[in-house]
Structure formats: structure tokens, C-alpha cells
């Protein structure tokens, strides 16, 4: 440790007028982050990353560091930041437990294609493999949940590895990258060359040349279709191709439904937006999946929660699949035409070749099913007549107050499905949710990150009473750094989604879903966060307005009906056309 201190003290950290830089590995790492345009870091210090934190002390004017309360909170915050801003989220954590606490967030970011660069400290290189204090094999633990990872043991590698990390994280199909840096490399004094961004790796081709013959084949199929149907996912958002997508549907007049990861890529109010796909999606899109003749999947991956039973999924349809990742094409659903490429490039080419069209009769079918769903499900949910409040009416009130301009961050469970179903969105990157991994505890920290990623937006975190109790420690982060997040706890005093399944499929054997909660209002207040609780409809609207109009962060707990279910529902193992309205 003495030698470490000495090395730091020897470091003068003066950027010379020449383009080289003399300093430590830690300093060159932070310089590299600035070169990559990083402004915000979510992190937590510890023994093996102390040299980086020591260097960070002098960078306070250039890099904002948010001290989270747990590394999982840090990585979810970085995810929220990345999803709201479209930039790469950056996380610092120490070795051992610091690094293992990142794993859930890495898995979440990997399955939801969120660009992250995580920097973990590691024990000195000469201690690797000795079971040193806080040593853990981070590289091998994180290999299945990272797009790429690398262990740096020599400071001379840092610049190149960092440049590669940012390039890999944000190019092609984005994903999380982890760099593990041994303490000696952080301390190592070197003369470093100028930082050069990476734009090519010979073994990695993120954006393929688009093959025009596949575009032509796709256009031909689309032009011949009588009942075409578009499914779009987060690929449209990640490709920053919202305008290109809009142009495509506006010209073709094809109804388009979204996965929860793609929600908001076009406004909820767009006339061709026919709603949500999947298990708790809308009635029409699910039923009509099995009636369309050409299914056009754009930037989505046919997750099992979207397809239901695969051997009864869209068997009558010819599938056109646009995706940037070739491993997704033909993975779950066989494509008649696979268009491999960035939809930012492929969609305009396709738009050029397709006929202008309107599919009035076909659209009318969606409206017909929608009316049925409105009558049987949506109206009772949004305008309940019973005493108990529903999650749906809370969402309706939020829509009325915010008009669709807020960023809605959700946790996982019933409230998540209700929020995705009923929240209105005018803008892209406004629905932030843990889609693929379904991580309870995601909501609160992700909302903090989203607020840093989009500081001018109202950020509302909608969280269940169960999920909130998984990461409540991040109230401390809000307290200290003041992220003006509106926390809305929809409390049904149950682990609602599991309870719903137990009711429907396990004879109401409510096994360990009866969860008790602390006094959330008092908890928030103990963190000096304004809070209140509503248990009557008469006070709901005013309470929501108070929360949203409050200057800083605010926690509102709303007591909703205990045993409400989310419908429609495609029961597991059933076909999408067997969707139940009750």
C-alpha cells in the first residue's frame, strides 16, 4: 500500500503540450472516458478501485459521479441513463462483491441490448489466482452476460481496451461491456499516446452492408400482401430509426403493434399503432397475428412472452424479419425473407420499393377487436365503479396530467403490464422497463439514471410494493444527489403477478405472495423525501398532481385493489389466438 501511495504522489498529471500524456493508468482511463463523451458515472468505491477514485477526485468538474447505495443500483441507474439518453451508461465498482453485485444488471442489459461500459477494480496482477482479499474471477463470472469483457493488467492496454469497449457497447446490437483493471495497472505510471477512438475490429462486423436482393424480396412480399401486419421492437429505438419507421408505415398503411421494449417508438396516438403484443398485450394484435398473411418483424426477437406457443404462432403467415443480429433471424420463427441490417438503413430502402397503400378493411378488424377489449377490459380498468382503486385508473390520471410527455420507468410485475398497456407516450425513449430479464428492483435505480439521462423530462417510477422492497436503499442516492424522481408505489399488498398465476393456474394456493410493507411514507421521509399516501379515489387526482408538480423527488403510495388481475392474458403454453379477456 505504501508503494501505491508513493506512485500516486509521484504522479504529476500534467497534460503536456505534446499529444502524449504522462500519468497513471487511472488518469488515462478517466481522460479516455471524457474523450468518449462521458459526463455521468454511477459507482461505488472500494479497495481495488481506489486508485481510480483517487484520480477521480481531480476530475469533479468534468465527470459527475453519482454515489449509489449498492452496485446493483449503480448498474440499473446506468441502464436507465442509457435508455433515456441513447448514450453509453458507465458504472464503477470494486472487485469481489462490488463486481458480483453487477451481475443482475449485466444480465438485464445483455438481454435488453443496453449499451454499458462497466469498470471494475481487481486485485494486483501478482495476486490473481491466490484467493486474495476481495478477489473474484469477474471475467469468467460475467462472460455469459456481457457482449465483451477484458481484464487489463498493464496500463499500456487501457486506452485501446477502453476505445474498443465503447465501440463494442454502442455499435451493432448494443450490449454491456466490462473492463476489469488490476490495481497495479491503475497505479502504473506511463507516458501514454493520444487517445484514439475505435471504429473497426477485424473480427467484428456490427453493421453489415445491406444486401439489396433481400430488400427486393421483402418489398415483393409486402406488396402482394392483403393482410400485412408489422411487429416492432426496441431495434427501431436502438437504431434511432423512429422517423424511418414512421415513413414506412405511413406509406404502406400497415397496422403496427409493439413489444414492450419497442413501445413509444411511434406515439401511442399514431393511427396505425394498434397496440401491444404478447401475454398481456392487446386483443386484436394477438388474435390477428394468426390471421395476417405477411408478418413484418422489425427489430424484435420473437420472445416467448410475445409468441406464446410457437408451433401455433402465425403459421399461415409469411414472415419478413429485419434485424441487425443474424443470430436472431430464424432463431424462434422461421423467416421467409431475412433482412440483415441496421433498420436505419434497411427501412428507407424498403420504403422506396413498397407501394403506397391503405388497408382499411384490415384495420377495421383491429378496431373491432379493440372495441371488444375496451368494453370488456379497458373501461372497467380505467373507470372502475367499485370502491377499490385500480392500477389502470392511476395510469389514466397520469396520462391526463402529463399528456404523454413523461418518462415512465417501471419495475416488474402487474403494475408493469398495466403501465405498458395504458401509459400514453408521445416520444421515443420514454418507456423504460426491464423487458427480457424481468428484474424486480430495476425501477427505482433505473428512474434515477433516466433523470440524469433526460434531466428536462418528468420521470415517474411506477413500482409495486414487492419490487420497491428489493432496492429501496437507492432512496439514499436520491437524498444525496437530488434526482427529482417521482416514485409511485402501487401497493396491492401482494406479489400481484405471482398471485394472479396462483389464482388462475394453482387453485388459489397463495404460496408466499402475501407480502407486508413498511410505512413507505415514513421511509421516504426518513430520507428527507416528500411523501404521501392515498387510499381513496376522491384524493387520487390531487395527490398525483401534487407529486408531479412537486419540485424535487416525491414518493406517493397508492393503495389499489388486492386481487385485481391483468387481462387480457395468453396463458403460458397457449397460442396467441387463445388469448383470454377474463
Amino acid at each position: 500500500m505504501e508503494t501505491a501511495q508513493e506512485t500516486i504522489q509521484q504522479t504529476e498529471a500534467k497534460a503536456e503540450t505534446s499529444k502524449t500524456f504522462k500519468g497513471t493508468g487511472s488518469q488515462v482511463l478517466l481522460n479516455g472516458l471524457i474523450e468518449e463523451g462521458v459526463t455521468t458515472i454511477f459507482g461505488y468505491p472500494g479497495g481495488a478501485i481506489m486508485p481510480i477514485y483517487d484520480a477521480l477526485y481531480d476530475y469533479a468538474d468534468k465527470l459527475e459521479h453519482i454515489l449509489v447505495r449498492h452496485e446493483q443500483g449503480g448498474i440499473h441507474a446506468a441502464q436507465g441513463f442509457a435508455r433515456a439518453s441513447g448514450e453509453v451508461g458507465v458504472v464503477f465498482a470494486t472487485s469481489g462483491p462490488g463486481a458480483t453485485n453487477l451481475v443482475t444488471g449485466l444480465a438485464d442489459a445483455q438481454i435488453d441490448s443496453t449499451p454499458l461500459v462497466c469498470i471494475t477494480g481487481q486485485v494486483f496482477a501478482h495476486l490473481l489466482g491466490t484467493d486474495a482479499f476481495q478477489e473474484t474471477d469477474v471475467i469468467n463470472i460475467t462472460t455469459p452476460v456481457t457482449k465483451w469483457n477484458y481484464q487489463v493488467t498493464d496500463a499500456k492496454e487501457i486506452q485501446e481496451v477502453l476505445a474498443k469497449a465503447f465501440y463494442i457497447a454502442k455499435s451493432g446490437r448494443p450490449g454491456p461491456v466490462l473492463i476489469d483493471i488490476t490495481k497495479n495497472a491503475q497505479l502504473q505510471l506511463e507516458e501514454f499516446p493520444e487517445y484514439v477512438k475505435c471504429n473497426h475490429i477485424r473480427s467484428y462486423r456490427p453493421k453489415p452492408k445491406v444486401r439489396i436482393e433481400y430488400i427486393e424480396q421483402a418489398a415483393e412480399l409486402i406488396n402482394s400482401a392483403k393482410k400485412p401486419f408489422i411487429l416492432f421492437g426496441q431495434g427501431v429505438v436502438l437504431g434511432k430509426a423512429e422517423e424511418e419507421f414512421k415513413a414506412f408505415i405511413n406509406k404502406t398503411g400497415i397496422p403496427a403493434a409493439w413489444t414492450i421494449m419497442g413501445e413509444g417508438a411511434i406515439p401511442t396516438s399514431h393511427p396505425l399503432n394498434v397496440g401491444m403484443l404478447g401475454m398481456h398485450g392487446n386483443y386484436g394484435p394477438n388474435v390477428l397475428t394468426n390471421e395476417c398473411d405477411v408478418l413484418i418483424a422489425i427489430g424484435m426477437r420473437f420472445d416467448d412472452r410475445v409468441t406464446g406457443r410457437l408451433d401455433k404462432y402465425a403459421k399461415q403467415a409469411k414472415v419478413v424479419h429485419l434485424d441487425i443480429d443474424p443470430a436472431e433471424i430464424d432463431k424462434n420463427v422461421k423467416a421467409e425473407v431475412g433482412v440483415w441490417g441496421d433498420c436505419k438503413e434497411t427501412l428507407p430502402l424498403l420504403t422506396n420499393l413498397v407501394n403506397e397503400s391503405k388497408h382499411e378493411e384490415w384495420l377495421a378488424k383491429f378496431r373491432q377487436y379493440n372495441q371488444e377489449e375496451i368494453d370488456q377490459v379497458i373501461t372497467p380498468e380505467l373507470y372502475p365503479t367499485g370502491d377499490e382503486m385500480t392500477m389502470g385508473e392511476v395510469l389514466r390520471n397520469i396520462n391526463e396530467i402529463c399528456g404523454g410527455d413523461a418518462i415512465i420507468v417501471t419495475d416488474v410485475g402487474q403494475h408493469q403490464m398495466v403501465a405498458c398497456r395504458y401509459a400514453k407516450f408521445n416520444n421515443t425513449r420514454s418507456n423504460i422497463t426491464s423487458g427480457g430479464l424481468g428484474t424486480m428492483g430495476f425501477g427505482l435505480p433505473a428512474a434515477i439514471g433516466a433523470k440524469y439521462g433526460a434531466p428536462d423530462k418528468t420521470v415517474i417510477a411506477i413500482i409495486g410494493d414487492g419490487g420497491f422492497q428489493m432496492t429501496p436503499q437507492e432512496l439514499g442516492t436520491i437524498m444525496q444527489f437530488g434526482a427529482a424522481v417521482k416514485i409511485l408505489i402501487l401497493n396491492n399488498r401482494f406479489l400481484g403477478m405471482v398471485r394472479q398465476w396462483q389464482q388462475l393456474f394453482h387453485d388459489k394456493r397463495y404460496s408466499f405472495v402475501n407480502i407486508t410493507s413498511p410505512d413507505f411514507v415514513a421511509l421516504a421521509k426518513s430520507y428527507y423525501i416528500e411523501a404521501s399516501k392515498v387510499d381513496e379515489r376522491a384524493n387520487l387526482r390531487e395527490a398525483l398532481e401534487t407529486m408531479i408538480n412537486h419540485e424535487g423527488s416525491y414518493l406517493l403510495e397508492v393503495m389499489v385493489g388486492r386481487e385485481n388481475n391483468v387481462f387480457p392474458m395468453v396463458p403460458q403454453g397457449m397460442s396467441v389466438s387463445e388469448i383470454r379477456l377474463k
Partner: protein
Amino acid sequence: MSTENTLEHKITKADFDGKQEYTITVYAENRIGLLNRIAIIFSKRKINIESLNTSPSEIDGIHRFNIVIHEGYEVVRKLARQIEKQIEVLKVYFNTNEEIIWQELALYKVSTDEIAEKVTVERLLRQYGASAVVIRKDYTVFAVTGHREETDALVKALEPYELIEFVRSARVAIIKDSAGFHEKLKEFEAFEPREELVENEFLEKGEKIFTM
């Protein structure tokens, strides 16, 4: 270019008749940890690797993996795409046994006394294509290079004479129709590949791909 993709597996009816042996050839950067990254693609799906060999390739600095699995075509195709998706992997091919030239090396340790007494060593060497690697007073080591049946046959033949030790290497394979990987690599190294570089050759097969 598509007609030149001779390294690639040609789909036949046999591909859909159930499981068979496929040899996966991976061209990759020589990087610590990549073996693990590739191996977990199999273990994640609970697929056993029958044989795995890593070696240098014909290109300086590029490593080559030979992986043998017993699986159906659909599974192998998906695995190949998942492997090719890894950042440090350049190219993945998969082939049936008919499409490759392959060898395995086996070593056999037997008692020299036993073998000299009871077997005509000369006949043994000739019949099984074996060679004597070491002949000592106490034991002799034979080597056989060939297909599985050939190396297995000598195990059978030596069983009565106390086979003290036996070991067989992983499979090494060369794709028969090989045009080589050289040209491709140059393309990979180029920032802007030529128009003809078929980057996703799987997509060439649209109509031939089996439906789930």
C-alpha cells in the same frame, strides 16, 4: 461469391433425419477467455462437446477451433450463429463427416514382454497402421492416426494383452472443398469490405432452411 462458399456445409436430407456428427470450425483471434466464451454457448444449452481442439491456423495470429458435437442440423446452425456473434470470432463453418478430412491420434501403452511373447508385432503394425513410438524393456507405446473406428479397433486388439494406458486426441479436421480462409481474412481486415463479401452466409439459404 455465393457459389464460391465452398467451405460451407451443403444441406441434404440427412440434416433433417435426426442427430449426426457435425464438425464446427471456428476462426478466431487468439485471446485469453475466448475458449470459455465459446464453450458456454454449448453448456448453456446443455449440449455436450464430444471433442474440442484448438490450434494455430494457416494464418499467422489466427486461431482455429475444431469442435465436434452430435446434434441436429437446426441446433448446429443456431450454435454456429451464436459463436460467430462473439466479438473475437471471425468465421464459423459447420460440416458433416462427408465434407471434411479428419484425423484423431491415439496412443497405446502395453507391456513389452506381453506383446513380444504373444503377438506378432509386425502384423499388428501393418494391420492397424500403427507405429511404435517408444520401445522400452518394460513397455511399448504404439500410435495410430485415423478415424474413430480405426483407433477403436486397436483398443479391441490389444485388450487381451493388458492395455496399460490409452489416450485419444481431439479431432482435427480440414474442410474438403476448401478454398482457404485467406481471401476472406483480407476482407475482414478491410474497413469497408468489397461488395462481394458475403457476411452472413446463412441468409443465402432462405428457401432451404428447415422450419421449426
